[in-house]
C-alpha cells in the first residue's frame, strides 16, 4: 500500500551541485531533525533500557555483575507462579482471540447487509471500547454475583448457581468481558475490509450463481486475509492487556485460574527482583516476536495472490 510513495522526496534529481540538489541534501538533513525528538525519546525510554534489561537478565545481580547466562531464565521458568501465569495467559489467549476474530467478523458481516439502523448498531457495538473498564466493573460484579442476574438466568434452565468470580468459571467472565470490550474495534476493521472488496468480482460470482458460502470462502476470505492477520495480532496484544479487567474485578490476588502474566510482573516489581523481571520480560518479548513473525509468514503465504 504505502510502497506507492516510496520515493517521496527522492524524486527530484538535479545536476550535481545545482541549487535544487543542494536544497534536497539540506532537506534530507532537516528531515532527520524532525525525527530527532521522537527518536531520542524512544531510544532513552525504550531501546537503551531494553538493552540493559537484556544485560540484567544475564548477570546474577546489578551490583555484583557476574555473568550467569541462562540461570535467571531457568529460575523464572521453573518458578511455579510464573508457570501458572504463563499457562493462564496462554489459555486465555487461545480461547479468547479466535472467538474475538470470528464473532467480530460475524458482526461486521451482519452490518454489511442492508439492514435498518446500521449506524446506530455500529455505535452500540463500538461504545464499550470507549467506556473505561473501571466504570463498568461495578455493574459487572452485580451481574455475576452469586445471587446476581446471570445466575438467575441460568437458573431458569435448571442450572446450579455458579460462584463466577471465585471458581474456575472466572475465566468465562473474563472472556466475556474481553469480547464485550474488543469486538467493536475488530468489527470496524472487518467492515472496512469488507467494503474494499471489489464489487464487480462479487457481482460476477452472483451471476455465475455461486452460493453465499462459496462467495464467502473463495472470495471474501482471500480479500480479508490481511485484515484477519491484523485483527488476530491486535486481539492477541489486547488479550495480554486483560490484566486491567481482572485487577479491577478481583484485586491483586485473584482466583488461581485468572492469575495472569501481569500479576506475576507486579509481584516481581513489588520485590524489585530485577533479574526475575528482566528474564520474564525478555521471554515475553521473544514469544511476541515469534508470534508476530509466524502470523506475517502465514499471511504472506495465503494472501499473496490478492494484493489488497
Amino acid at each position, binding site marked *: 500500500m504505502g510502497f506507492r510513495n516510496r520515493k517521496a*522526496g527522492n524524486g527530484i534529481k538535479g545536476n550535481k551541485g545545482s541549487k535544487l540538489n543542494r536544497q534536497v541534501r539540506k532537506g534530507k538533513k532537516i528531515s532527520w531533525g524532525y525525527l530527532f525528538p521522537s527518536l531520542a525519546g524512544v531510544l532513552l525510554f525504550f531501546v537503551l533500557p531494553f538493552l540493559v534489561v537484556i544485560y540484567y537478565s544475564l548477570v546474577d545481580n546489578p551490583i555484583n555483575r557476574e555473568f550467569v547466562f541462562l540461570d535467571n531464565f531457568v529460575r523464572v521458568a521453573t518458578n511455579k507462579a510464573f508457570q501458572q501465569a504463563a499457562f493462564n495467559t496462554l489459555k486465555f489467549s487461545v480461547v479468547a482471540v479466535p472467538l474475538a476474530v470470528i464473532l467480530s467478523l460475524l458482526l461486521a458481516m451482519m452490518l454489511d447487509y442492508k439492514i435498518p439502523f446500521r449506524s446506530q448498531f455500529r455505535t452500540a457495538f463500538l461504545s464499550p471500547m470507549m*467506556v473505561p473498564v473501571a466504570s463498568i466493573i461495578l455493574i459487572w460484579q452485580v451481574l455475576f454475583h452469586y445471587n446476581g*442476574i446471570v445466575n438467575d438466568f441460568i437458573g431458569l434452565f435448571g442450572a446450579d448457581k455458579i460462584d463466577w468470580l471465585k471458581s474456575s468459571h472466572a475465566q468465562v467472565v473474563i472472556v466475556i468481558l474481553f469480547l464485550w470490550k474488543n469486538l467493536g474495534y475488530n468489527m470496524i476493521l472487518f467492515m472496512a475490509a469488507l467494503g474494499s472488496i471489489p464489487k464487480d468480482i462479487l457481482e460476477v460470482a452472483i451471476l455465475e450463481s455461486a452460493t453465499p458460502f462459496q462467495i464467502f470462502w473463495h472470495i471474501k476470505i482471500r480479500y480479508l486475509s490481511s485484515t484477519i492477520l491484523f485483527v488476530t495480532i491486535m486481539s492477541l496484544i489486547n488479550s495480554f492487556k486483560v490484566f486491567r479487567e481482572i485487577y479491577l474485578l478481583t484485586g491483586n490476588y485473584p482466583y488461581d485460574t485468572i492469575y495472569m502474566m501481569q500479576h506475576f510482573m507486579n509481584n516481581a516489581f513489588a520485590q524489585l527482583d530485577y533479574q526475575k523481571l528482566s528474564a520474564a520480560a525478555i521471554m515475553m518479548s521473544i514469544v511476541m516476536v515469534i508470534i508476530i513473525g509466524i502470523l506475517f509468514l502465514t499471511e504472506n503465504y495465503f494472501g499473496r495472490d490478492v494484493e489488497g
Partner: protein
Amino acid sequence: MKKRKRRKVRRMFLKVAMITLIAACFAVLFLMPIVLTVTNSFMASSEISSNYGQVFATTDTGGKTYISEKVNLKFIPDMVSFSQYITVLFKSPEYLFKFWNSVILVVPIVVFQLAVASGAAYGFTRFRGKLKEVIFFVYIILMLMPYQVTLVPNYLVSEWLNILDTKWAIWLPGIFSPFAVFMLTKYMRRIPASVMEAAQIDGAGEWQIFKSICMPLCKGALCSVAILIFIDYWNMVEQPLILLSDPEMHPLSVFLSKINEGEIGLAFAVATIYMVPPILVFLYGEDYLVEGITYQGGIKG
C-alpha cells in the same frame, strides 16, 4: 413468475428482519452494562444498599463475601435522585481529586505525543531511506509489545532519572510512545509525493511544507489518533500501579475499584462521571475514531 418473485422478496424481507433482530439483541447486550451503571447512579443511597448492599460486604480480611440474599437488579430507579452526585461534587473531594489526577496525567500525554509524533512522521515520510525503514520497523515492534515487556525498561529509566513516583514517570514514556508515530506516518505517506515536490520546487522550506501542507492535510488523522490515545490512557491501570507507589496520585481508573461497602451508590455516580469525557469524545468524534481504527489496519503497507 410473479408469484415466485414475490416469494423471493418475502424471503429477502425475512432474512433482513432476522439479521436486524440478532443485531438488536447484540446491541442490547453491549449497551446494558453502560446503561445500568448510569441508571444506578441516579438511585438514592438507601435504594442502592437495599438492592445490593450485600454484594460488596467485606470481611475483616478484606475479601468480599456473599450473603445469601437476593440481589435486586433494577433498570430504573424507584425515584430519580441526584443525592449521589451532590455528595460526589460537594461533599467528598477525594473523588474529584482523583478525577483531576486522571486529567492531569492524560491531557499532556495526548498533546505532546501528537506534537512529537507529527514531527517524527514527517521525518519518516520525507527522504525515505533504508536506515529510516529499519528504524520504523523497530517502532512497529515496540508498538506491538505488551506492557509486561515495556514497563520494565520504563521503570529502569524512571529510576535512573529519579522521576519514579512523580507524574513524569507516566508522562514521558507516554509522550514518546511509538503508537502515534506509526499512525501518522501511515497517513502522511499517503499524501502524493508530487504535492510536496511541487512545493519544494516553488522554493518552500521544510518547515513550510510541514506546516502549510502536511499538517492541514493530516487534520483528520490527528483527531483520530488523539481519540485513540485519549481512550487508551484514560483507561490506564498498569502504569500507575507500577510507576506511582503513592495511591494519592493514582488516577480514577485505578481508584474506582477500591470502594468501601458504604459507598457503592457513590461509586456508581463516580463511575458515570468518569465515563462522561470519553463518551462525549465518542459522540462527537465517532467518525474520526472509525477512520483511525481503519487506518490502524493494513499494518504491512
